[in-house]
């Protein structure tokens, strides 16, 4: 199966709501990166984590290599947060970086 499983596939939020996305890994990963893909298709890096938790404004991400998961939490969702979010994980004994299937987020007024 897919080494990176991402949920949910789609998410609808109202402005001001909080929610979370999750990636589960079938094997131990060395690092994870979270991206937002905008309407023009550009992949924008949100976080790179080799372990632990990082925060940036309304976004927070956690990576637990031992438990094989990573999360991205969005607080106080805004219209500009709409887009598709991907996690991408690096295998522990390789430089190969594999993407999750993505979460399509729609934020409404």
């Amino acid at each position, binding site marked *: 199966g897919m080494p990176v499983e*991402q949920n949910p596939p789609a998410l609808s939020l109202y402005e001001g709501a909080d929610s979370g996305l999750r990636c589960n890994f079938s094997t131990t990963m060395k*690092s994870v*990166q979270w*991206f937002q893909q905008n309407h*023009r*298709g*550009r*992949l924008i*890096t949100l976080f*790179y984590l*080799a372990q632990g938790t990082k925060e940036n404004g309304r976004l927070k991400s956690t990576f637990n290599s031992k438990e094989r998961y990573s999360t991205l939490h969005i607080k106080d969702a805004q219209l500009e947060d709409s887009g598709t979010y*991907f996690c*991408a994980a*690096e295998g522990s004994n*390789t*430089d*190969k*970086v*594999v*993407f*999750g*299937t*993505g979460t399509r987020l729609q934020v409404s007024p």
Partner: protein
Amino acid sequence: EAGVTQSPRYAVLQEGQAVSFWCDPISGHDTLYWYQQPRDQGPQLLVYFRDEAVIDNSQLPSDRFSAVRPKGTNSTLKIQSAKQGDTATYLCASRRTGGAVQNTLYFGAGTRLSVL
């Protein structure tokens, strides 16, 4: 620093035609990746290089696709005889591996290919 540069931005082909995509990574980045992203799907790794060496091309359809990075800098991905199923955006990414810095992957804007 300059980002990852890809060209062309768009390509439209008939089935059976050939096409090449070009990628200029960030200076000093030893590892370069090519991904294929069909519409409404996540990027799927085709091939990656460290310097000029191919490290993994197991997902590259070898009968029609080829990729090179002869001097360990720029890279070219070529489709010999395009099929409608190749319609997708082709993304190039680069990063510096190893060392003490975080190995963030940086992406180019992509080449959007339509095969009619």
